[in-house]
């Protein structure tokens, strides 16, 4: 089964939840960090890294000798990544979305596939836990292509090693990168905090992820601090509250020391075991549908 841990707002505790869940999960499991702009999961799970691969996206390269400046490519490109200025065809590889349109439309075969670096994908192991993360090159503007590449890599992690569950630590927010990460999962866990900022962003998250059709559940972190609005909202929206992590300075301190909360505090292990079971229950119907589709 594939579980996404997401949140509208950053800093609510996604990584805290993802790391603890991965540690208490029963059965083979892989932890995947899809927050490619600011990956943090490895700082807690501390995997031993094996190989790192470059992730690249296809961009066009120009053969000036064959180009007749018919402008077909420049007219098609929606992103102005290729531009004809009369005597010279200029490409802006960093603007390219890799759609292949210019290559397909060129009547003179004057364009060839080249690539630009998106970032890297790193494979690791932390005891029996498999680990995968993507890291966006600083200066690279687009995260979705790298997120897609990491998800594809999770399918081919250890060919022949047998199936395992996957826990995806999604990027924060509700725009393209987050939606890309959450797509295709069997359940999405929304981590929120019971404050006005947390509540507001939870509403955005529900609006963003509901259309994807996967079952949603809520984890309220720092419960006890703030107000009741997120709970009322969850009830009204028929969203199961899968766990409440209490506001406790010891948890904040454990996290700040890079500790996995479910290991650092015994009562937290119990809480996360219960959460894991409830998440599995939430995901099972979608998983069944996916398997037998």
């Amino acid at each position: 089964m594939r579980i996404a841990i997401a949140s509208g707002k950053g800093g609510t505790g996604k990584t805290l939840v993802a790391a603890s869940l991965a540690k208490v999960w029963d059965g083979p499991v892989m932890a995947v960090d899809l927050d490619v702009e600011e990956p943090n999961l490895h700082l807690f799970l501390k995997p031993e890294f094996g190989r790192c691969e470059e992730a690249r996206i296809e961009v066009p390269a120009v053969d000036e000798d064959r180009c007749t400046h018919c402008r077909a490519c420049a007219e098609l490109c929606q992103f102005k990544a290729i531009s004809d200025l009369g005597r010279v065809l200029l490409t802006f590889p960093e603007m390219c979305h890799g759609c292949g349109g210019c290559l397909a439309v060129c009547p003179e075969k004057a364009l060839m596939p080249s690539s630009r670096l998106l970032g890297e994908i790193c494979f690791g192991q932390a005891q029996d836990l498999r680990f995968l993360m993507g890291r966006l090159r600083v200066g690279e503007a687009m995260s979705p292509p790298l997120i897609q590449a990491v998800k594809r890599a999770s399918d081919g992690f250890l060919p022949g090693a047998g199936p395992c569950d996957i826990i995806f630590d999604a990027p924060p927010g509700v725009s393209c990168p987050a939606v890309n990460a959450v797509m295709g999962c069997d359940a999405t866990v929304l981590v929120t905090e019971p404050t006005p900022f947390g509540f507001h962003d939870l509403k955005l998250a529900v609006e963003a992820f509901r259309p994807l059709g996967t079952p949603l559940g809520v984890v309220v972190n720092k419960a006890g601090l703030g107000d009741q609005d997120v709970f009322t909202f969850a009830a009204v929206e028929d969203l199961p509250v899968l766990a409440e992590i209490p506001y406790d300075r010891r948890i904040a301190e454990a996290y700040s020391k890079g500790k996995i909360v479910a290991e650092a505090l015994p009562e937290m292990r119990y809480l996360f075991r219960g959460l894991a079971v409830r998440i599995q229950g939430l995901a099972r119907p979608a998983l069944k549908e996916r398997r037998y589709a």
Partner: protein
Amino acid sequence: MTRIAISSEGPGLEERVDPRFGRAAGFILIDLDTMEHEYLDNGSSQARGQGAGIQAVEMIALAGGVKAVLTGFVGPKAFQALQAARIEIGQNLDGLTVREAVERYKQGRVKAASQPNR
């Protein structure tokens, strides 16, 4: 025929130089000898998500015969495109009217930029 283009807030020579290049309201293309001029509306570049500057360069290059562009500030990609099209760039001319900017250019007081200023 020597023509130059000036980013402009409107079609007349008394309009102010539009400080933005890529998202300028429009461009006045003027023949330096006859002072005849035409206005290119830049509305379609404005609507773009990315690449407004590049599109503006394409439009000017297609109009033909433009030797230099006078404007306020130019981003790095538009700058690259202007250089590829072999069009000189005069920056930091916002605050003047189009007429004043043209006069300055004719007097040789506009230095061709070697780097984008934005």
